[in-house]
């Protein structure tokens, strides 16, 4: 099997699982292969189980299957949790010293998993050790590769002057190098990957390359040819290997974001840290130094309100958070809406409610994003379906915010944030549209024409000319209270209606101006009887599922909604009207389904939802869609795959 491979590496949090995965992904990427991977981890710093699952292919990859071709485990828990995900013909790398460990004495292993394993092993007449898991793998036709980490480390320790104990953290490099040895990727890619991942730390680069070589050799010598999956470098253009967090950070920079406030929260904070570390850049050609202020605030309400302040001053401003932080900042949304201040909120959804599953995936905040904030004000809510979209949307959000002078909520999610993928991006096509923003000179003109500057002037479009704070020749007022054209408090009932109409009508304007392609994307045949609707990062799994179905002759359409507010209901109606609608969503209640019914009256035929904290796999989506088409699906199916 060449260049089509699902890899998983797992171990305790803090033991370098991510580094393994990064090296793996970089190495594959450098070898011209395409990858897509996801990271799973507990809300914990050290000791709980975490893993990374990656799919490699010669063609671009956009989702995962639930089966794993090679599982590289650092520890016994990884085996206990994942050994049954490995496909027949696949392989398991494990530490032989763990074989006699009892699965009942892994302190971090969840009781539910333990009980499941006990049942299963007892049914097979196996005892409750790790060895039994390996045995079961063998029985299933899985290749098992003991990798004696200690031995190899001892060897390294002999070669270097380092003590064995100092080398323990190198297990991750050994695991990934062994894995790449099994699939026979040339070692040079591993070396380059290590150089890249540890850049700036010469000593670490050297040591890790040394370790990788030894492990690579070890596997070559012991297990060589046995493993059926192979990866081979291929010619390919330059691509980026990006996480969603990084793509959004980059989109913001290119989109002109110059003020990013944040309060730490998973999985949003990495974006801000990334920006903080890259806060200076070139602007307008070689000599101008541009910079972004990354402002760590005392809480999320301070984050949103300081960004709004920056927006008033004329900087493109944003904040990033996830559910709990969004809840803390809600009051600021309404103020920005009321005062027509452009500001962007990137909302990384994660498992809710409350603290919920802080490091797990869900798309449960759609309705909340649409309605957060008391009273009614216009907001634009967009959702990205993949890393590439996330980059362009992150930039475009500022155009919407400034053109329609309001708050833009950019919905992304944990799966997107913590996935990595090889993608191509083109910053040079990103446009900057600042909307109706007057300069000092414009004000001079207004005045010399006998006019007066009014921040909230009634205009036919609902958009009033904006100036930055500090603009000479005028002043304005803002108030969260209902106000008149100047911005002064006003409780008159007629003014109230005019101002409400002015603000709310901007939604209709946005709806009419924004090109359809930015609002929805339709995939597949227009006449398909069954049409999937979804939003956000389910996109890849759905596309792959309907692609496979179509290969089997089953045609299903897919309507991806990117613009959730204002919802392009007419266009949606036209597409869905005479079809069976299948709503696929990462939440309990099928929020998009409800929204579509609300806005179009069209009812959803089938719901496929998932809320176990793990993203959708293409194979479970495939199977549930197939069941719908074949008439064997329940009205609402709950997907449950993932560990």
């Amino acid at each position, binding site marked *: 099997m060449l260049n089509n491979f699902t890899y998983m590496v797992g171990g305790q949090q803090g033991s370098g699982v991510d580094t393994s995965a990064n090296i793996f992904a970089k190495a594959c990427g450098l070898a011209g292969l395409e990858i897509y991977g996801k990271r799973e981890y507990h809300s914990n710093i050290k000791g709980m189980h975490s893993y990374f699952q990656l799919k490699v292919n010669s063609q671009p990859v956009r989702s995962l299957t639930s089966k794993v071709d090679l599982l590289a485990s650092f520890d016994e828990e990884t085996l206990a949790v994942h050994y049954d995900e490995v496909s027949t013909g696949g392989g398991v790398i494990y530490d032989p010293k763990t074989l006699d460990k009892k699965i009942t004495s892994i302190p971090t292993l969840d009781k539910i998993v333990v009980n499941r394993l006990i049942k299963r092993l007892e049914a097979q007449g196996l005892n409750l050790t790790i060895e039994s898991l390996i045995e079961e793998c063998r029985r299933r036709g899985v290749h098992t590769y003991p990798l004696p980490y200690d031995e190899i480390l001892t060897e390294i320790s002999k070669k270097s002057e380092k003590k064995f104990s100092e080398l323990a953290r190198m297990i991750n490099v050994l695991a990934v190098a062994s894995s790449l040895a099994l699939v026979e990727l040339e070692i040079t890619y591993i070396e380059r990957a290590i150089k890249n991942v540890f850049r700036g730390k010469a000593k670490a680069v050297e040591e890790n390359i040394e370790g990788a070589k030894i492990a690579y050799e070890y596997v070559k010598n012991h297990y060589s040819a046995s493993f059926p999956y192979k990866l081979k470098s291929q010619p390919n253009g330059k691509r980026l290997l990006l996480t969603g967090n990084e793509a959004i950070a980059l989109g913001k920079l*290119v989109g002109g974001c110059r003020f990013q406030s944040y309060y730490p929260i998973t999985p949003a904070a990495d974006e801000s840290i990334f920006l903080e570390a890259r806060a200076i*850049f070139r602007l307008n050609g070689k000599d101008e130094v541009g910079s972004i202020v990354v402002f760590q605030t005392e809480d999320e309400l301070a984050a949103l*309100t300081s960004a709004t302040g920056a927006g008033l001053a004329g900087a493109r*401003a944003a904040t990033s958070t996830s559910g709990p932080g969004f809840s803390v900042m809600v009051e600021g949304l309404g103020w920005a809406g009321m005062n027509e201040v452009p500001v962007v909120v990137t909302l990384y959804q994660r498992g809710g409610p409350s603290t919920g599953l802080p490091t797990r995936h869900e798309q449960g905040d759609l309705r909340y994003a649409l309605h957060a904030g008391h009273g009614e004000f216009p907001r634009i809510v967009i959702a990205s379906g993949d890393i590439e979209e996330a980059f362009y949307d992150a930039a475009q959000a500022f155009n919407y915010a400034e053109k329609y002078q309001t708050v833009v909520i950019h919905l992304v999610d944990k799966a997107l944030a913590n996935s990595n993928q090889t993608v191509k991006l083109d910053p*040079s096509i990103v446009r900057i549209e600042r909307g109706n923003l007057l300069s000092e000179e414009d004000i001079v003109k207004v005045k010399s024409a006998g006019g007066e500057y009014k921040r909230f002037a009634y205009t036919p479009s609902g958009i009033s000319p904006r100036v930055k704070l500090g603009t000479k020749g005028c*002043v304005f007022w*803002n108030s969260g209270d209902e106000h008149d054209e100047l911005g002064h408090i006003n409780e008159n009932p007629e003014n109230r209606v005019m101002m409400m109409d002015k603000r709310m009508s901007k939604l209709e304007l946005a709806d009419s101006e924004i090109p359809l392609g930015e609002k929805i994307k339709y995939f597949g045949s227009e006449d398909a009887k069954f049409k999937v609707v979804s939003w956000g990062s389910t996109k890849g799994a759905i596309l792959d599922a309907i692609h496979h179905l179509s290969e089997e002759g089953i045609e299903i359409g897919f309507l991806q909604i990117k613009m959730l507010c204002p919802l392009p209901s007419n266009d949606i109606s036209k597409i869905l009207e005479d079809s069976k609608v299948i709503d696929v969503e990462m939440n309990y209640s099928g929020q998009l389904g409800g929204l579509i019914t609300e806005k179009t009256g069209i009812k959803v035929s089938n719901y496929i939802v998932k809320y176990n904290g793990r993203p959708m796999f293409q194979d479970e989506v495939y199977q549930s869609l197939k069941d719908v088409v074949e008439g064997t699906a329940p009205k609402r199916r709950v997907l449950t795959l993932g560990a």
Partner: protein
Amino acid sequence: MALKLADFKEQIHNDWCPGCGDFGILSALQSALAELNLEPHQVAIFSGIGCSGKLPHFVKAYGIHTLHGRPLPYALGAKLANPNLEVIAVSGDGDGLGIGVSHFVHAGRRNVDVTYIVHDNGVYGLTKGQASPTLKLGVKTKAIPEPNINDAVNPIFLALAAGVTFIARGYAYDIKHLKDLLVKAIRHKGFAFIDVLQPCPTYNDVNTKAFYSGEDRLDPLTKKPRPRVYRLEDLGYDPVVRADMTKEQVMAKIYKVIELSLEWGDHIPIGVFYQNETMPTYEQRLEQRLRAYLSNPPANQRLNTPEGFSATDISEILQELSV
């Protein structure tokens, strides 16, 4: 051409109660801005919600009437986006020391060059007179059914603990003195806090104008009221902490500030309590990180090419991330 108070007057109806101390604060601020020779467009005033929160509407300057308790983060965001703006934040005591006190404490840690005025009237005025955080324990004002069950915050002490670098107290009816304080505060490089004793004739029938001016304490000789409020300057008090002072000198100053902050009753000091000139501002710290921050601040950077495309060059970062 020198500006006058009137240049900062916005011609709309002022709906504060007759006799409200807020009028004094407003005049003092307008005079201070004029004295500093600022032009209206250079000034941005951020306020919270409350009677006090309406202040910016009465000033001809950029006036941003924000959320209850939140003028500081809005103000800080604007100032950091454009450090050339003269930024002033205004709160009520409920606004700034109640719901918003977290922003105050954290503003102390940052030392952004913003001036912060708190209208200290002991009540939540605009919601009809509930006890605010500066009302003392056991005090019973008009609108509260039972004597205050909470102890008061001490704004000066709190500011000192929070690391605020300029700490003063004014009195709303000593307008000239308050104007002078505001001028000093605005000139101070860093975060400047002014607690203003502000009689609320409508709801606070304890800390009234008569109370502050001692109308119940007649001088036995002159038969004139002996004011409870006195000026620190009149004691020759020097609030400044300088770089060349010894640790002991600094500590002595801190103790003095605390002693003064605890004075109440018949001796209520107003004036500058503390002025620390040794701390770098947040903007200076940012300049160190970002090089061209002050000369090319976020709000002023040109974002687009003449053709309307992004002018931001991220090629170096992309290089780092490419495979």
